[in-house]
């Protein structure tokens, strides 16, 4: 795995909250078609790290290296637009907008097709996520598992090369967990790079290629 060139690298990530260093020179690489787990104690800064990587939270410092670009290394601030086009972040409890399942899907802009997607693509992700029968149902009334699958369907439609997930199976029953993990495996097999913050190793061990352990602001990498 280490012989592969990463698609995206982050170095020197620093973030403090009220003078407490949450991230201290953290660094990580993300590879196409690979899934890494992000482990750490509660409050270690996993969600903070994911939101920085997604371009949603400003770090105190960070450099981002987009491999394969003419100007690959940029500061977080300069790379924010590109980060938002490359990385998609899924909250632990997905936020779904008021309206039907299909309405929620319509809000997702494809990262690779100029923002648009056709009805066929929507039908495909509905079928992929097993939500065909719920297409017209109000999204906010779905069960936890269905909400998570809708969030993943939205991610598939978005077609971002990197997917960051914050404990995607917490609060889900066994069956929903298995369905969610199967969908994640399918995305990984399509070439999506994934970083999953989680506590439960067992659930993700089948799809994970490696792990990052976050402790005292630093990331330590280990192979699966």
């Amino acid at each position, binding site marked *: 795995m280490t012989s592969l060139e990463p698609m995206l690298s982050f170095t020197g990530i620093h973030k403090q909250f009220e003078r407490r260093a949450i991230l201290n020179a953290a660094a990580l690489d993300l590879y196409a078609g690979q899934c890494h787990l992000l482990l750490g104690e509660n409050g270690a800064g996993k969600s903070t790290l994911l*939101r920085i990587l*997604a*371009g*949603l939270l400003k770090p105190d410092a960070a450099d981002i290296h987009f491999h394969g670009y003419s100007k690959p290394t940029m500061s977080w601030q300069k790379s924010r637009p590109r980060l*938002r*086009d490359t*990385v*998609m*972040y*899924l*909250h632990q*409890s*997905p*936020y779904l*907008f*008021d*309206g039907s399942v299909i309405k929620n899907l319509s*809000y*997702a*802009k*494809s*990262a690779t097709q100029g*923002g648009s997607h056709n009805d066929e693509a929507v039908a495909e992700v509905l079928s992929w996520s097993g939500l065909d029968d719920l297409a017209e149902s109000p999204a906010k009334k779905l069960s936890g598992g269905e909400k998570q699958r809708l969030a993943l369907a*939205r991610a598939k439609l*978005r077609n*971002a090369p990197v997917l960051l997930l914050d404990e995607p199976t917490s609060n889900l029953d066994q069956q929903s967990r298995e369905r969610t993990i199967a969908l994640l495996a399918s995305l990984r097999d399509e070439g999506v790079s994934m970083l999953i913050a989680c506590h439960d190793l067992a659930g993700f061990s089948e799809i994970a290629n490696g792990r990052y352990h976050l402790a005292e602001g630093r990331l330590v990498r280990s192979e699966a």
Partner: protein
Amino acid sequence: MQESLGNAVVEAIALLLSGDPALWEIIGISFTVSGTAILLAVMPAMVLGFALAFYQFPGRRLIIALSNTMLSVPAVVVGLTFYLLLSRQGPLGDMRLLFTQTAMVIGQIALAFPLLVAMSHSAFQAVDRRAWETAITIGQSSLGALFLIVREARFALLAAVLAGFGRIIAEVGASMMLGGNILHYTRNIPTAIALETSKGDFAQGIALGIVLLVLAFSLNILLHLFQGKGVLS
């Protein structure tokens, strides 16, 4: 007294139903002035309300405190302030706006703006913080994300607009001072009610009062209908 009040109410309803031109002209002026004021105030107020809810910037707390303070300023004080600004001796006297519908619109914007800011700020604050991040991360532009947030808060924002409209269409102080209650030009519902009542002509005052009551009732029923049945979704 009871009999004369009853007669006045009957006469008021008859005036309304008969399409009395003088009465309906006053109603028209009220709706034109207040409608213009709310249309002009709503967009900047809601942008400010959004910024207050979603961004941290210098002076944010001061703006919140000011808009909350302005909520309790009487309309007549707002009217007096703009009267002094727009009167011939005032700094804006050369514009010759005093006793015009434009002056009334300015006064009503000043009244509606803080209410719209405070209520839209609350409306946007009630929207889950994840909504903005989700909108951005699914590929929406900042404008697209703003549209989605507005959509999420639409009922509360509509309530803000209705409350703002309700406040300015019924206020008498600023309209009287800035419009001057000129017949066929700046006489609106509240200034007409004040004038007709002082003259002892209760029928027209009651007729116009009924219009305001029906308006307030209709707007609230509409809002509840939209909220209950999801007409706006």
